[in-house]
């Protein structure tokens, strides 16, 4: 029994971090109908930036996360203006390919700047755990999970309680009308992109403490994040969180009770199953079928 609880705890903590990583992706898709394949690359980039801050300056990585988020937000904003905006009227497949290309460029850049050997952020608490009876709760995972919750709550507050949030939702629903009522859609879009990337940045910062990473790690991350977003429902932030938690649990439980070998098949199997049986995901909405594809 305690083994089950142990695994559940691990799964939930894992899910919390995944939620942070995937929330940004879902947000960007929901508002701009852009599938950002480079999301994983930004996450790894954030891990490298936090690593540098920790290694060079001695800053605690979870504190450095705030700085990293700012840097990565700016990068995201720039990326939108320079790369995504020119093709915003192109079909969706174009943005997929564009962001894939961007992911490759980022991977190369990280390799050049930081090298290709395995990097890990190892503050003192990285190998310690709290014990609760027979259960061990790794400290880094717990802190990471808490930070993830904080960032997600802040994101949620911004989206629902601020003017920016309303502008974002208006622009998402109907860009043309939003312009008509005075919302500068391109600025809002750039901000949303930046916010989404910043969320990934926070996720990357935390995961850099939990796992070693190399520039090429972004593939595994984007695969997971896509699965989570598809599971939760493309465009639904709540869905991303729910999907992430389910995902974290699924990975852990498969690893523990089936075999670690099959644990990596979980993301892909989920994507398949969801898109087969319930294409809109858990919390996504179905579009009206006869809407003209204008």
């Amino acid at each position: 029994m305690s083994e089950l609880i142990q695994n559940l705890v691990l799964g939930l903590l894992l899910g919390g971090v995944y939620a942070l990583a995937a929330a940004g992706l879902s947000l960007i898709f929901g508002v701009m109908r852009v599938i950002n394949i480079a999301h994983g690359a930004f996450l790894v980039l954030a891990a490298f930036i936090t690593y540098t801050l920790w290694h060079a300056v001695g800053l605690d990585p979870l504190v450095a996360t705030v700085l990293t988020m700012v840097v990565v937000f700016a990068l995201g904003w720039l990326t939108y203006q320079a790369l995504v905006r020119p093709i915003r009227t192109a079909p969706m497949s174009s943005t997929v390919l564009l962001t894939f290309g961007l992911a490759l460029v980022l991977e190369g850049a990280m390799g050049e700047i930081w090298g290709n050997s395995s990097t890990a952020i190892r503050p003192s608490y990285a190998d310690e755990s709290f014990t609760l009876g027979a259960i061990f709760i790794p400290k880094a995972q717990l802190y990471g999970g808490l930070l993830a919750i904080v960032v997600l709550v802040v994101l949620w507050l911004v989206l629902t309680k601020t003017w920016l949030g309303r502008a974002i939702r208006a622009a998402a629903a109907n860009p043309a009308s939003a312009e008509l009522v005075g919302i500068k859609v391109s600025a809002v879009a750039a901000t949303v992109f930046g916010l989404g990337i910043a969320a990934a940045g926070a996720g990357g910062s935390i995961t850099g403490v939990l796992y070693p990473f190399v520039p090429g790690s972004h593939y595994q991350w984007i695969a997971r994040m896509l699965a989570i977003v598809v599971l939760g429902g493309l465009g639904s932030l709540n869905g991303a969180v729910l999907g992430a938690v389910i995902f974290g649990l699924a990975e852990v439980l498969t690893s523990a009770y089936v075999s670690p070998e099959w644990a990596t098949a979980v993301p892909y199997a989920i994507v398949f199953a969801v898109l087969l049986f319930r294409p809109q995901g858990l919390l996504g909405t179905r579009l009206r079928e006869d809407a003209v594809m204008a």
Partner: protein
Amino acid sequence: MWHHSLRRGVTAVALAGLAGLGLVACGQSSGASGDTIKVGTSLPLTGEFSQPGAAAKQGYEIWEQMVNADGGLLGKDVDLVVKDDASNQNTIVSDYNALISQSKVSLLLGTFSSLLNLPASAVAEKNQMLYVEPAGGSPEMFSRGFKYLFFSQQAVSDQQGIPYAQYIASLPTAQRPKTAAYPTLDDPFAAPVVEGARKALEKAGVKTVYKQTYAIDTKNFDTIAAAIKSAKPDLVFHGAQFEDGVGLTRAMLKAGFTPKTYFETNAPSFGDQYAKGIGAKNTEGVTFAVSYSPEAKTPGNPEFVAAFKKKYGELPAEDAADAYAAGEVLAAAVKGVGSADDQTKLADWLRGHTVQTILGPLKWDKTGAPIGSYLIGQWQNGQARIVLPEAAATDKIKPTWTPAGAQ
């Protein structure tokens, strides 16, 4: 707007085409020059295997430096050509084709990882060129009937853990571990080591309580550590490369579980990197299989270590030493035959002789698989020592793992 992007597009294409032509023109290399002997290899300097790839490059370069300092090969200076295959199979095939037909190398040296050596050695074999590989010990390599392939380590992977298994079997019943766990990476190198050792240990009466393979890109070891913990093994025999070797060790520490005895492939042989990875105080007693030790009194080793330290400021990693040994084997064959032209003669020479290297004496069977036995190393007092076989040992083997941070 349409014409805009169209014009831009066509301009872009025209420029790209010109650039491409220019590059091709510049890129042709001019073939072998008269007084050097070209030796070519492709290594994974970027990508998944970049860590051992970089180490191998260091080893090869030291070899080049030392051979040339000693008068070169057949009187000519060695010119080492190193390509980067980015850990990609297609690229390594292209690279070896390029080395043979474009760079026109006289001799080839192998690469790191069985996954890359398998296709690369096929290119060499098709072109009937000698292929000495410093890594790639999976049994698969030697079942293809190749005549030009040689592995420059002491043993194929499924034999590498045997000396240790024999040691465990030889312990008195009271001290011998009763149960063992076998987590392993799904890797054609690591998995056979574990399999070979497990069979031997089971024969010696050690009960298997956990046996799982995890996928290559596994990052999260907490669940695996938890599962191992609940199986309560006395011995953990872990088949790993580097990242996962560190990862699982840390996860076990986090989970508050330390088996009495701990054996891990690969990772512990990475010297300082391993110590940093799991924490220097946790290394005490970790046992591993290794092909090389900087302290070994094998011929040429002290000079190698000195030259390496001078150039790179650190002790050579195992992969670097293996690469150096491959160079030694190649040089021995060339010197033995007296020329580099007839690759078949070189291969025959190696099959009939034993070569003395910094890893010790190496000799091969007809498939190119080495006949020898691996070393077993152990971390003691913050240093990696050799403990088995006793003839080569620098220290006595300790039976237990005692990480300082054990809970």
